[in-house]
């Protein structure tokens, strides 16, 4: 009896040693490129540093400067505008597409692939073709608008009013397919027998949608909402290619501002402080959603 326990601990110890050996490569890489950088970013945000001069400790200086920075206030407003418009529109459209595709319509594989293509396309390449489509003088979109009789054609990326909507349209086009695929997978998790039972009970299509499909789908909706919000707070490549944050900072967003300060003005401390705020905002949104989910998410 005593002997077998000794053997057991020896086996357990060998297993433990094996586990750490298997983990070693990931631990080293995780420490160097994720864990230590996250902690460093926190400290760098309390310094002033342009990579060449000495590092100066400024305490909360960068955060105080951000609070009084008029462009940063505008950047936050622009980012909120982008998130608040693109996320709901994208989610509703994706859900509608998924519901229609889930009916077993002919050609659904074809549609699924076509709607998903923008997701795997490089955002830079997508932004380039859309910049060309939105070109206010020679672009296809204004040509189509003038064809249907619009005389006061928007200047799109050249206008403070229309530049952000143009970026939002491209973002929805690019991310719609991802949310749609997640909704489709969620819908397929809801068994057909649930619907059949409800139909036998005399529930109409709308009743079934509101009282069965939507509640049973709510874990998926929750997940899509969380990752869409996290993703849209990080909009960057569309801005870089389509507007370079212009005109007059009308499309400057959080990540673009971090990029500008860090890699164009070489203000590492200031950029890190903005990055920490981005982290806090994303974290706060996610936590609030986890708190609120109890009210509307139903786990089966």
């Amino acid at each position, binding site marked *: 009896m005593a002997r077998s326990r000794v053997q057991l601990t020896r086996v357990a110890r060998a297993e433990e040693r094996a586990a750490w050996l298997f983990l070693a490569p990931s631990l080293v*890489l995780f420490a160097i490129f994720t*864990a230590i*950088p996250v902690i460093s970013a926190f400290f760098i945000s309390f310094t002033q540093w342009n990579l060449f001069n000495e590092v100066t400790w400024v305490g909360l200086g960068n955060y105080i400067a951000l609070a009084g920075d008029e462009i940063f206030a505008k950047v936050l407003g622009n980012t909120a505008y982008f998130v608040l418009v693109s996320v709901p529109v994208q989610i509703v459209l994706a859900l509608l597409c998924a519901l229609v595709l889930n009916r077993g319509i002919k*050609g659904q594989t074809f549609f699924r692939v076509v*709607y*998903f293509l923008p997701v795997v396309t*490089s955002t830079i*390449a997508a932004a380039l073709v859309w910049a060309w489509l939105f070109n206010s003088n020679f672009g296809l979109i204004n040509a189509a608008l003038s064809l249907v009789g619009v005389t006061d054609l928007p200047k799109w990326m050249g206008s403070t009013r229309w530049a952000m909507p143009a970026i939002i349209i491209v973002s929805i086009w690019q991310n719609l397919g991802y949310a749609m695929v997640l909704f489709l997978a969620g819908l397929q998790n809801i068994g057909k027998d649930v619907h059949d039972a409800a139909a036998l009970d005399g529930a109409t299509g709308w009743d079934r949608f509101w009282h069965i499909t939507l509640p049973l789908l709510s874990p998926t909706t929750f997940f899509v909402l969380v990752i869409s919000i996290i993703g849209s707070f*990080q909009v960057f490549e569309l801005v870089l290619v389509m507007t370079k944050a212009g005109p007059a900072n009308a499309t400057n967003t959080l990540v673009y501002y971090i990029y500008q300060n860090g890699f164009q003005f070489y203000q590492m401390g200031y950029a890190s402080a903005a990055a920490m705020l981005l982290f806090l905002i994303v974290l706060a949104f996610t936590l609030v959603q986890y708190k609120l989910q109890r009210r509307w998410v139903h786990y089966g």
Partner: protein
Amino acid sequence: MGKTATDWLLFVVLLIGALLMSGPFVWMIATSFKPAADVFQFPPTLFTADPQVENYVRIFSTISFGRAMANSLVVSVLVTLLQLVTCSMAAYAFACLRFRGRELLFLIYLAALMVPSQVTLIPNFILIKSLGWIDTYQGLILPYAFSSFGTFLLRQYLKSIPAELLEAARIDGASHAQIYLTIVLPLAKPALGALAIFTFVAQWNNFLWPLITTTKPDMQVAIVALATLQGQYNTDWPLLMTGSVIAIVPVLLVFVFGNRAFIAGLTTGAFGGR
């Protein structure tokens, strides 16, 4: 309205949607064959009367786009292979082995998924710069050699392997390395395939990191070269569209052949952890 009538109506709506979704691709390809002067016609036409294949030659001679495509391929393939190794090893430990601190470490790896990549961008840039790794392959590749997402995805899959199977192998005297190589990896092929396609696509399209860690045209990846092209030839739309077409072809090919595995990977990420 009967079921068939509704279905027909929805089919037409989906078809219009498909036109809107694929329109930019069609426009991209059509423009890539236009002569430079053609694009300043108003209203624009879809097809040019005088198609030019010349743009596809010009792009490789005006900038080192061929080299950039090769760089993208090298970086994306190596990152994919490295992640398959590091993530599957970590996933094996998390899913099949018992050790103290397992739950805590897994939670730390998962928590990293919450951190926006822009937070680690500046410290990593400083690290790579101080190592003298700007304009090197190791600078482009190593920061992506491991991912929490990949570990999570594979762990979910490995958890479905029956414990008795691994236990039996151990009683037969197989070492952990043997079990990992001869039992676990072959069984995990579908999940490894999904991760491979997902990683390749994400890495090919990765932009900000290669943008800031390369300065020489010879070390640029295709997507960065494309953005640079925009700065140099910002009104040469046929050339820009040619570059875009070439830069997205490898990913579209991978996606068309592996779209089932790709989507399976994405949805595992979504539903596996519930």
